[in-house]
């Protein structure tokens, strides 16, 4: 029995227990707290090692070879850490809501942990689907809108993500079939990676499969132009679901690209047409969505769109494909997850207290809620890439990784980096506009809020501290990834 199996099972068991009638808050808080401790323990154990650790495999099928196999390296541990952190914060800030909030949060978190910590393609996929279903249901049942509207949003999300998952499934099936070469099929990721190393597929075929996977995984990560589910979904989703989906579950698509698509199809990613297509799409994320975000009139709208926009930077790392950039991408996945969860959590509190998030109705909130303002500032400055908070280190590595082989001629990639840097300016524009509009200025709008009690601040302090510590010492996380990605 591997520690990873406990980590995956714990939230699922807790969800079952709550469903069966156990007291929701103590059980889910206890489970997420223990889980965070377990992941931290595993991470400390892993420090200094390379390759997969904590592996354990339970065969399920002979042919095709399929087994419940777990295993983790630095990348999966960093994402597991992200998941447990955000899960704890999300569960903590649920107050006085029906049990289903706890159940859904535990299922989403547990599903994400399963996807990050298993090494069998079938289970990676299945765990992600497990996490998606509660997301849809929670938007439809407890979304923050009129019933008709939230159902429409839930539908849109379901259709988009369902379609994306199907494209992804097709791509995965294609890859698995190609590698089997008519012989025994296997879903074991390590076996597939070995095959890719020994007998790589022809480059054209790699490019085609990679592109299918890019669209499939990309839809899950709101890659432009398959992104339009994301903004309404996050604006409508209940706070813990928005925190968990935008913070954690959305990273699954990126994790899949990094863990499955790139190792199996390394040359396909570098074929010019694939790379150019990706560059165009990610520029859509950064520039188009950057401008759309500037246009937003509500805080939740700004945050949801900015979260779509920031995915562009992580895709940039995949377009660059260098080791530095990909490690930066992992760091940025972690950073973005923590910062967006922090800011969505705070945004949820604001909506509860004020009843509105329209900029035109807000102002001067800092006067009565200084601690809240400081915590919010952490989220704002993290997402505009201020050094000292983790996002900066990730972005810096992605930019530097893209320029690592610069020989004096600016290629498409380099121009994209330059345009992406302009996106950093746009992020500052909309984030500081929002911050200025909500917190600064005179408190004369008639709406004001007070600081949450200390115990209610804990989840946000946890996330803000994480940003500060890993932002000042990004090597803490980077040291977990000693081998080239």
């Amino acid at each position, binding site marked *: 029995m591997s520690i990873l199996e406990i980590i995956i099972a714990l939230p699922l068991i807790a969800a079952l227990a709550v469903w069966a009638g156990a007291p929701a808050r103590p059980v889910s808080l206890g489970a997420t707290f223990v889980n965070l401790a377990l992941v931290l323990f595993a991470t400390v154990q892993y420090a200094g090692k390379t390759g997969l650790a904590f592996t354990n495999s339970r065969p399920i099928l002979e*042919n*095709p070879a*399929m087994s419940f196999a777990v295993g983790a390296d630095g990348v999966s541990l960093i994402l597991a850490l992200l998941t447990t952190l955000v899960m704890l914060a999300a569960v903590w800030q649920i107050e006085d809501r029906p049990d289903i909030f706890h159940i859904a949060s535990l299922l989403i978190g547990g599903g994400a942990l399963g996807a990050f910590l298993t090494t069998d393609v*079938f289970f990676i996929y299945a765990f992600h*689907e497990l996490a998606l*279903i509660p997301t*849809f*249901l929670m938007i439809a049942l407890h979304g923050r809108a009129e019933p008709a509207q939230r*159902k429409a949003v*839930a*539908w849109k999300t*379901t*259709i988009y993500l369902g379609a994306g*998952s*199907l494209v992804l*499934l097709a791509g995965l099936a294609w890859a698995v079939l190609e590698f089997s070469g*008519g012989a025994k*099929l296997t879903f074991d990721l390590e076996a597939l990676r070995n095959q890719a190393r020994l007998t790589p597929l022809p480059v054209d075929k790699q490019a085609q499969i990679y592109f299918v996977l890019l669209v499939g995984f990309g839809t899950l990560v709101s890659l432009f132009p*398959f992104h339009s589910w994301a903004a309404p979904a996050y604006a409508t989703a209940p706070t813990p679901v928005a925190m968990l989906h935008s913070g954690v579950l959305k990273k699954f698509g990126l994790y899949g690209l990094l863990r499955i698509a790139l190792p199996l199809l390394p040359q396909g990613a570098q074929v010019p047409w694939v790379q150019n297509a990706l560059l165009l799409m990610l520029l859509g994320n950064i520039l*188009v*969505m950057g*401008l759309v975000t*500037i*246009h937003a009139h509500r805080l939740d709208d700004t945050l949801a769109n900015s979260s779509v926009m920031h995915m562009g930077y992580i895709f940039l790392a995949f377009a660059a494909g*260098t*080791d*530095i950039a*990909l*490690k930066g991408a992992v760091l940025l996945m972690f950073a973005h997850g923590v910062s967006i969860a922090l800011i969505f959590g705070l945004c949820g509190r604001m909506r509860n207290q004020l009843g509105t998030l329209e900029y035109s109705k807000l102002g001067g909130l800092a006067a009565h809620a200084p601690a809240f303002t400081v915590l919010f500032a952490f989220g704002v*400055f993290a997402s505009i890439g*201020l*050094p*000292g908070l983790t996002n*900066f*280190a990730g972005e*810096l*590595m992605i930019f*530097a990784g893209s*320029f*690592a082989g*610069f*020989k*004096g001629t600016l290629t498409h990639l380099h121009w994209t*980096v330059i345009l992406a840097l*302009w996106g*950093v*300016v746009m992020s*500052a*524009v909309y984030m*500081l*506009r929002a911050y*200025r509009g909500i*917190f*600064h*200025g*005179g408190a004369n709008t008639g709406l004001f809020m007070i600081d949450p009690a200390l115990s209610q601040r804990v989840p946000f302090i946890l996330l803000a501290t994480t940003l500060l510590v890993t932002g000042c*010492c*990004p090597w803490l996380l980077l040291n977990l*990834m000693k081998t080239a*990605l």
Partner: protein
Amino acid sequence: MNAGILLLLPFFSALLILLGHRQLKGAAVLISVGSSVVAFLASLAFLAAEDNEGTKMFLPFIDAGGFRVGIDIISDKQSQGMMFIVTFIGMLVHVFSVGYMKDDDARPRFFGALSLFMFSMTGIVLAGNLFMMFIFWELVGLSSYLLIGHWYDKVSAAEACKKAFLTNRIGDFGFMIGILILFGLNKGDVSFDNLQDAFVQGGALFDVQKANPGLITAAALCIFMGAVGKSAQFPLHVWLPDAMEGPTPVSALIHAATMVAAGVYMMVRMSFIVTASPLAAEIIAGIGCVTALMAALMATQQNDIKRVLAYSTLSQLGYMVMAVGAVAMAAQHGNHGAHAADPGHPAMFHLYTHAFFKAMLFLGSGAVIYACHHEQDIWKMGGLRKHMPVTFWTFTIGTAALMGVPLLSGFWSKEAILGAAFDSGCRILFVIGAATAALTAFYMTRLWLVAFFGKPRTDSAHHATEAPMVMILPLAILAIFSVISGYDILATPLQAMKPPHVEGHQTVFWASLIALLGGTGAALRLYRGKDTDPVSIKLFANKFYIDEIYAVIVRACQDRVVWIVTALERVFVDGIVARLPAAIAARIGAATRMLQGGHLQGYTFLLGGGVIAVVYLVVFVLPRLGH
């Protein structure tokens, strides 16, 4: 390690105050001021460190996949001298703030941000590589944002801090591109030492410079863009006058003496790349020259005491930037032969003397504002000479130093800059430099006459009393340094600051003397005994309408483009990618009735069922077909 203390001390001071700012209350002031005093002592030790220790890694930051960014400390004459200025003026401003912010309830927040600033500025000074410099570059931007927005409930302050941050971000956009280009070309090494070596014959960048000079020019100008933002050069100068919304000690420390000079400090560090590109050198000198002249013209028509000083700061920063370009141009023509990065760059010399007298002038204006109950309009002052003698005399010394009265510090450094402009081979630089000197004499005399002479024009001016000791002591100390900082007594330990020998050009000397006398004489004639401004030039008073032009550009471009793109995104992406397939599907058949009906559970079930079906097909059916 000594230099490490300089960096860590203010960091922990800021962190401590941030964490416990409710509980600490008055102790926060003590922590912050104490750390600034210790930092000053440490900087003396740092200054005394005999030999250049070169660049050493102090703390790791990133080390992954062959990419290394360290907190590297560079220890040479330039960083030692700059460190002295930063910690010395920083300490005096901390002390002054104890008095100035006495009645402010948010003192802990103020002093916390001040410590954060000291940390970030120390980082810039000690930075041994470009990435580290960028990190602290952004952090001074943050602390400047926090301090300008100290009184965030005032709309003007809230707008000003946002504007400062965003304008700087635009500059940093270029800065980062420049760093990345050099990072790529120099194979991942952006430490100042190695970059400089790479420009010597046989180095990696030397070859690039020969083969592709345009790229080096582009890199130099991109790097310079960072300085344009931070040092508020045209066309990104608009944030600095608005930054005066911050408390006055902040204006003295950050927006006059240290942070805004960081751009000049960085350009002097990078002067080898300016020397490598004639076009970049000319553009840099030109931008500096335009800023110097334009800001001086705007200063002549301002009525807010702090704004006059702010435009004067812009103008003087323009001088320094012009010197960076001019020295490089001279070196390219072979006028000096000496390496531009040698100790004693005229820009650093002026940075250093300017830091003292401008900090002094700002603190003096702070004392005036404090005494006049936060009145900032010079036309509502008057006659303060008698009420505030110490402030008056120190202010007079500062004014004289800024105007370049012979034998005061500003005279020497202005000579050095005009000399560099003279040597650059470009007469326009020299002529505009001299004209700016005349304008400087004019607007400073105007300010000095209107505020301190004549009769008190309002009650608050009438009842003004001298500021308390804790405020005038820093003023007096700075006044002394404004006199002596041009002489060898200080310049010897601070070798990087003073050019080894300032050759006296006859032309330069007479030009600056005529400029001084002309400017002062004109102001005396026009403003003596006046209670209202006899001159009114709308163009200057309205800052050449640049803010208005930018507002129009933002409205026309940004807001409109944003609107159009948002509309297009809705129509095309949402419409075509999402709705069109849905519409087609709706025509196809009955299955879609469920879609519109909203049976979500049903659909989710269907989705799950579909997934299982597909998996089943792939896993069990397809392999059999293969056999």
